[in-house]
């Protein structure tokens, strides 16, 4: 185990020495809010630097650009990045969803073509699942893909496409056969975004930031080889993608995808926030609230540890992985709302105000926390999944 300990020290030192200089613009909070070219270039260069130092994709196969090491090494890097609160790496969809998917079921050619570019941030990836008229009901996707000789022709529209503006590739769920039942008619594509007929319309978020787009397909012609698996396998592949996205399965390349304000930061704020002339941290009700969050937070951390012990997960092996997104995202949303309340009257300030606590980052973080309770399958859908797939309750 000494090897890991040495590695931890090496990594900690590397991040301390190589942390990029603070930019003169506000950095986004996560990969979903990258809204300006300056922000994007800064984060892309940072990811490349980490990769070149050997700290990304450490557990991915060497022949495709990975490090060929044990997952434990990447876990150490991730933990260190979170602990030092260094900027995040932007290519999350590539690193954590599309990448593991390609490694799991892609062809040899796919792996050679895509993996390296995902790791060094040369090729940014986006995800085309949701549509204007259906999101939770993903299987109802209507975007069409029609085979025509050596190509597929795409028509329709996807929406809430995070990183759409910067992406070179998209994982796309589209309907190849409208005659078939809804699940069987879907297929999965790895789409080159710089294809004539693909157009992007940026959408402004509730925070005022940018970062996702509506993506239009108007007779966009992509090579037939963009199809992943076979026609009709789209739903199955989309579900596999979601297990990576929701953190229910390992295999991700690593790196952190947001700079998280955590419980420790909340406690620090409670020391300076005031209640009746005293530090808020002395207020018994505030202390009680903070401890509630601490118990939940610790519980989730301990769930990750327990998930590694089969004898303690024997009855419902899928309970921890399938409840992960629901537990963690809802906890975070409530924690951030509590963080606002700690600020007293100052909770009503917003980003840019000279007196806003932390420049308004708490307000922004609370609003952005909905990205995880809505994106990737809403909490209500997650609760359905837990009820039906973990507990065996009937469908709605």
């Amino acid at each position, binding site marked *: 185990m000494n090897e890991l300990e040495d590695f931890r020290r090496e990594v900690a030192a590397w991040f301390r020495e190589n942390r990029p200089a603070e930019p003169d613009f506000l950095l986004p909070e996560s990969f979903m809010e990258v809204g300006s070219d300056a922000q994007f270039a800064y984060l892309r260069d940072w990811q490349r630097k980490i990769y070149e130092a050997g700290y990304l994709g450490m557990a991915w196969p060497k022949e495709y650009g990975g490090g060929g090491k044990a997952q434990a090494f990447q876990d150490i890097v991730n933990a260190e990045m979170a602990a030092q609160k260094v900027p995040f790496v932007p290519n999350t969809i590539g690193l954590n969803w599309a990448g593991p998917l390609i490694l799991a079921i892609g062809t040899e050619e796919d792996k050679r073509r895509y993996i390296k570019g995902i790791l060094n941030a040369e090729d940014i990836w986006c995800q085309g699942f949701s549509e204007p008229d259906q999101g939770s009901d993903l299987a109802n996707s209507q975007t069409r893909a029609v085979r025509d000789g050596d190509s597929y022709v795409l028509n329709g529209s996807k929406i809430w496409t995070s990183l759409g503006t910067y992406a070179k590739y998209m994982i796309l769920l589209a309907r190849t056969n409208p005659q078939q039942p809804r699940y069987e008619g879907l297929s999965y594509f790895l789409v080159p975004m710089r294809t004539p007929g693909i157009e992007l319309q940026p959408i402004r978020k509730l925070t005022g930031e940018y970062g996702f787009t509506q993506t239009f397909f108007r007779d966009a012609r992509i090579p037939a080889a963009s199809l992943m698996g076979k026609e009709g396998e789209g739903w199955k592949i989309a579900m596999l993608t979601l297990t990576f996205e929701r953190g229910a399965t390992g295999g991700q390349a690593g790196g952190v995808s947001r700079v998280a304000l955590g419980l420790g930061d909340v406690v620090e704020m409670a020391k300076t926030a005031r209640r009746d002339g005293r530090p808020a941290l002395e207020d018994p009700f505030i202390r009680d609230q903070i401890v509630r969050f*601490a118990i939940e937070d610790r519980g989730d951390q301990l769930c990750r540890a*327990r998930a590694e012990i089969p*004898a*303690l997960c024997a009855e419902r092996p899928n309970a921890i992985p399938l409840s992960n997104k629901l537990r963690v995202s809802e906890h975070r949303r409530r924690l951030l709302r509590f963080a606002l309340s700690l600020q007293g009257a100052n909770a009503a300030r917003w980003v840019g105000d000279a007196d806003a606590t932390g420049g308004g980052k708490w307000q922004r973080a609370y609003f952005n926390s909905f990205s995880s309770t809505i994106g990737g399958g809403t909490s209500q859908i997650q609760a359905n999944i837990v009820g039906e797939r973990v507990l065996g309750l009937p469908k709605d």
Partner: protein
Amino acid sequence: MNELIRFSDEQAMLLETASAFCREKSPIHAVRALLGSDHGYDRGVWEEIVALGWPALAIPENFGGSGLSLAEAAAIAEPMGRHLMAVPFASCQIFVAGVLAGADAALQAAVLPRIAGGAIGTVALFEQEGDWSLTAGEAFGARDGETVVLSGAKTFVCDAAVAGFVLVSFVLDGAPALAVLTEIAPERLRREIVIDETQRGYRLDLDGISVPMSKIMTGTRALAALDAVRDAALLLNAAAAAGGIAGVLDVTVEYLNTRTAFGRKIGSFQSLKHTCAEILVGLERTRSHVWHAASVLGSNQDAEIALRMAKTEAGEVFTFAGDRAVQFHGGFGFTFDCDAQLFLRRALWLEYSFGDGAHHRRWLADLLLA
């Protein structure tokens, strides 16, 4: 390599064996049949448990035990909680933990082999006011030569009517002390009517009991014993509650998959389904806390934090799960016949033993937030 949770093959085996044992020996009709019994448990089943060596798990080998620890006992307490089994198992473990931490070698030698041989031990800590503090009691001892004469009364002394040994707390010379009592005269005990009918709690009248100094722990030994008693109680209580959550969730899910309303299974209604998901989330967090606490037991402050967190989470989730179980059974849920009430009663019993969530959060705040 898992630093947060360690779970040995021994524990895994015990968990499996105990789960099968409790499922077989404590089906719900057996639990109900014992509600009106004198001592609340089946003697035959207890004798089997003694024969399996479970009460003696944490007793050192030189005293006839297995030399294991409470971390193994928790693997038995969890399934017992799940099947609402009521035997003096936890009473014995808590008693043993106190004796191991505070008694001198002679007292240990006098007591522990007897427990290993099947005698029952329990603890007498709480008093009339219902304060959870283990050092706030008013029972006291007056010195009389080489003996101490006790006065006052204790409450919620579990399994006292069948106990051969009782570890009792009191004040001696202004400081906490503990005594090991033997052969409690029946007239000193008054059975209490408690919310969980599977449990047996007694008021113990201490007035005039004379104890030789050789059976008394004082000073740092007494404090160490009280800490050990608290730690053992928190762990086993939380483990039993973790089992209880799983048990009551089964009862609820089963009903939601059978009962229909408006032409559909009631489990398809999201207000019920999502609440079950919330309970499942609580169960997963609880079990993680419990097995972490079992892993760090004996490591001072870390253990105290872990145990108080486990007790808090387990208690609150179990009570919530029991409360919702009653509601989700509709009119049937309001009946004595519905098993939901058995679990709700057990949940309340456990939550209000050794401190509820608000109590432990106050302590945790001081441990975590300074």
